[in-house]
């Protein structure tokens, strides 16, 4: 598998700890690569370097072996990009803007654009200024996809979309994946990358924490149960038995990754008022990658 995107030790320091520091990764042909991190972690800064908007202080970013800054115009022939911030030429209508972008990208065949418009149920007749955030986001997504690019760079693609459209977008990504498109997508929501990505990089405070295969992450991602006991003494007993359980308000919280059967059967012996389950949050996963130490 040859690499389409290669980032080597890029550093872009904006001062006060902002920016990216010594970030390296590569994305292979046909791979879907997630870039996960909280807001302000340096996701957009990385993408800007891949787009050739900014130059790294140190290190190099290449797509298809071409320098992202110097050869930006050439790279763009095969690349679709969705910016993280929505900003359009507001005085144009959605359709006008899409046609304008198609011409700028020298796309002759507009069938893919129309197909996408239908898929996202976009009515592009109104002025962009009057459109909702979600509708604008749809226009951005169509812009990125309409040239049937070989590489996709998507910065928080589902923000602003309603759940139905989010699902539709994920379906389209899976379709693209089948076609062999190389996809790089950033997000701060785990579920967004979970369904599509082969590998995921975690970034925090501008530093790459880990790059892991999705399958491994899913396996290690813990389920966290919050248990409400009927009787106070049973709660105390349970806490005594399980050192990894922690009281949380009047309840008890415990994370389980393996031994689900055992856990359920044991609980059956208690009088339980309520059990709730949630998945480990992104922040909690970070703690996991940091080996449990919290440096904040």
């Amino acid at each position: 598998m040859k690499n389409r995107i290669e980032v080597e030790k890029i550093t872009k320091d904006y001062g006060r700890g902002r920016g990216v520091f010594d970030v390296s990764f590569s994305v292979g042909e046909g791979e879907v690569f997630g870039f996960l991190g909280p807001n302000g972690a340096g996701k957009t800064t990385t993408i800007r370097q891949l787009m050739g908007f900014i130059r790294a202080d140190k290190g190099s970013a290449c797509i298809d072996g071409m320098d992202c800054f110097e050869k930006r115009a050439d790279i763009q022939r095969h690349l679709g990009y969705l910016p993280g911030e929505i900003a359009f030429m507001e005085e144009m209508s959605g359709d006008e803007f899409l046609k304008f972008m198609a011409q700028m990208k020298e796309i002759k065949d507009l069938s893919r654009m129309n197909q996408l418009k239908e898929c996202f149920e976009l009515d592009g007749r109104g002025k962009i200024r009057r459109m909702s955030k979600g509708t604008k986001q749809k226009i951005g997504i169509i812009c990125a996809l309409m040239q049937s690019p070989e590489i996709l760079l998507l910065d928080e693609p589902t923000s602003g979309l309603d759940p139905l459209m989010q699902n539709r977008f994920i379906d389209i990504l899976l379709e693209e994946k089948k076609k062999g498109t190389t996809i790089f997508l950033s997000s701060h929501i785990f579920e967004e990358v979970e369904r599509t990505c082969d590998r995921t990089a975690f970034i925090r405070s501008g530093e790459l924490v880990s790059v892991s295969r999705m399958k491994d992450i899913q396996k290690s991602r813990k389920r966290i149960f919050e248990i409400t006991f009927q009787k106070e003494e049973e709660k105390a007993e349970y806490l005594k038995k399980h050192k990894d359980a922690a009281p949380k308000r009047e309840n008890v919280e415990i994370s389980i990754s393996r031994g689900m059967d055992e856990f359920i059967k044991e609980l059956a012996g208690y009088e339980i008022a309520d059990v709730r389950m949630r998945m480990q949050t992104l922040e909690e996963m970070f703690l996991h990658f940091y080996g449990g130490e919290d440096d904040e």
Partner: protein
Amino acid sequence: MNKTLWKREWRAHYKVLLIFGAVLSLYSVMIICMFDPKLGESLKVMMESMPQIFSAFGMASPGITLLDFVINYLYGFLLVVFPVVFIIILVNRLMIRYTDRGIFAYLLATPNSRTKLTFTLAGVLCQMVLILVVYVTLLTIAAAAVLFPGELEIGKFLLVNAGLLGLLFFLSGVCFLFSCVFSESGKAMGFGAGACILFILVQMLSQVGEKFDKLKYFTPLTLFQPEKIAAGNRAAVWMLLILYGTGFLLFGVGIRIFSKKDLSI
């Protein structure tokens, strides 16, 4: 030049051109209507009573011919100030807004070099300024032909307008360069517009009296001297070439800086 972008920009901003064309039409025609060979005398009396104010606005010698009159009342102040406002508005719409709002992110997501994109935007700016000047020139000639047939010396008048175009081209270059240097809209706008306003104020001040005469060396507006151009002064024509030359340089440097700089969009 990118034809698609060029077309879009024209469609988006031609209305500004129309508005300024209309305003300048009003002034040009009005000033020509006001010309009265006999009126010269009474204006002279008025000017003698408050010479500083008249000269601050570049209206030092009302002159006898229609050409002198037009130069004095239009080319000294009005036809500089209004087009400068026009230029500031256009640079804001063509360059500053795009970088500030991040619309450039979309333009750069196409296989077009930054140089090509900015060259196109600069081209639209220059073309609009050119059209404005050509329009006012033709309109003034037409108005003069109708109201005072044969009075306007057309050859000299055309040369004066070539001079005005040079000055505006230079000032466009100044505003454009600042819009390329600064990414923050406030600074880009402030420096560009600020420089133009400063140039104009310094010129006005240098014209009020002997005491401030030396100030004229501190404003590029001195390089455009319509009355001397009309009089066929060679130095005045050379100064025009300097304006055109530096104008080109400013645009060139601006485009170059823009293609090398970091864009946080």
